[in-house]
């Protein structure tokens, strides 16, 4: 799981950076830094959630759909790994299957 964990973190970092534009402004994205202090809003959290689910091809459980899940790189990675770890199928990298 170490390899998987590493790659999850890398992707999570890219997705966060895409939302918050941190590195282009010279900010360092620490693994436990509070994203809400770095400009995360309810709307960027929304976009981040959707892009994480699309990218990893997962569905976060309802219990993870809360502010604290999107607190830090670590918290998000843990939430993603929890789903990936319990899933049989490997992540596809495609958007989640369309379903209402």
């Amino acid at each position, binding site marked *: 799981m170490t390899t998987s964990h590493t790659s999850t973190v890398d992707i999570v970092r*890219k997705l966060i950076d895409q939302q918050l534009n941190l590195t282009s402004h010279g900010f360092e994205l620490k693994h436990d830094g509070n994203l809400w202090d770095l400009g995360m809003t309810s*709307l960027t959290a929304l976009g981040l*959630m*959707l892009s994480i689910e699309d*990218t990893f091809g997962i569905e976060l459980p309802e219990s993870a759909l809360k502010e604290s899940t999107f607190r830090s790189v670590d918290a998000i990675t843990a939430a993603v790994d929890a789903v990936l770890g319990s899933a049989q199928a490997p*992540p596809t*990298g495609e958007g989640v299957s*369309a*379903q209402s």
Partner: protein
Amino acid sequence: MTEYAITERPAQADVVIVGNGALGLFLADELMERGMGSVVVVGPGHRETGASQAAGAMLGCFGETTTESLRTDASRTRFELGVAAHDRWPAVLTKLEEFSRTGRPLQSAPDTHVVLNSIGAELDTVNFKAMLDALDQYGKPWEEVDPHEIPGFNPRLDTRSLRAVHLPTEGAVDARGVLAALEARLHDAGAVLVDQSVRRLVSSDDVVTGVELDDGHLIEAGTVVVAAGVHSESLVRTVSEDIDLIPMFPGLGFAMMARRTGGDPFRSVVRTPNRGFACGLHVVPQGGGLEYYGATNRLVDSISGVTWMADVRFLAQYSMQQLDERAAGHEVVQWLAGNRPVTLDGFPMIGWLPPSGLYLMTGTYRDGFHCAPLLAEHVANELQGKPGTIDPMFTPTREPVVTRTIEWSISEYVEHNLAAWFETGAEAAPQMTTTQIAEYYRTRCVQAYDQLGIDYALGPDILWYAQGSLLGARRIRRYLRSHRGGSETRARSVDTGSGDAQ
């Protein structure tokens, strides 16, 4: 409400109606009147969380008019359901009155006053104008009145009325009294009311054959009609996850029943125009010294029988401020919370579903009570295999109805937020103009569409909900992605899918 419910449950019926709100009971009454065989209505007698038991039951379609009501053909068709339903009520009341046990007329108010006050912002003004235009278009009576002449109306000076009109033919009924009278009439006619909930629908080979109650008891049915309000979607899903229903959300609303302790009572419905995200502030005389004050509207993730402290404050404060300052001393005798069935596109869901033998009747949002007698006629026709009496556009498996562009949706959202901003008394720094507040909401709304990645334009209430609920946003996005409203060419795709990383 359980006076007529029986303890011996039937094992079979020609029609089982799931849901004992206004839609379910009016349909049962129509079926009994037409002699369409045995009818069983299943629903808990307490009706907790249901919309009908909490309804103000204003019989007002014109009082509810907004700028959206007649702007598109689809909205007009929907609006005209209300207009047609209005004509049914005199006969309905005549036949129900003898079954009423309340000791007072079921029609609790014969008429309505709509007031335009200064606190409701521009949205009030444009909706007020839209209402007058609609009244003229449909040739309905109204007259301008002096707000001081409205019995009971006694707002604080800071929210005094700018204009007021009298709608002599739009009144209200005692919702709880009507439901009880319908139950009595149904009992008299031989329909069976079962005071329980349905756990699941029973099917065999894609044919719905009955319902299973909470305790496992089965009732076989020739036809099952689901009219269980916001519970309907999950019930239908017990047959199949694959039925492509329009998503539905609970529109949690709060109202108070209060006993007047002094001052002149209201003798008519007194209301504002429809307002930011909601149905406007209104008081509905109930008879017996009681007045109904309503209502809030908040789309939520799950059905609930409680409400937010903010909504309690909202309703109490604005009732005292905008309707009658003496309401401060009124005795609240009942807190009413109900969940309106709100669909993604705002239109009802009425029609047969793919599994044979299953009919859906819900999604009526604010005026299910008002429209129930009309919809009952339509559904009874459909169950009899006759042509329906309303437009077929409300089929539950339709594509979401398009009534606005994204740009229009954003403007609407801004306007609703501004209305809420001023009504709640929010203060901006003195140098901040209304235009700047509007810019904030506009920017936020544009960002919301960008993040959601959809190109179906949402109504302001749904948009507000989607922005505040990750669960809601995800559900709306997924549904629209699987239909035509999903924007597949999302600019922000990332080039490091997990496939690459591995």
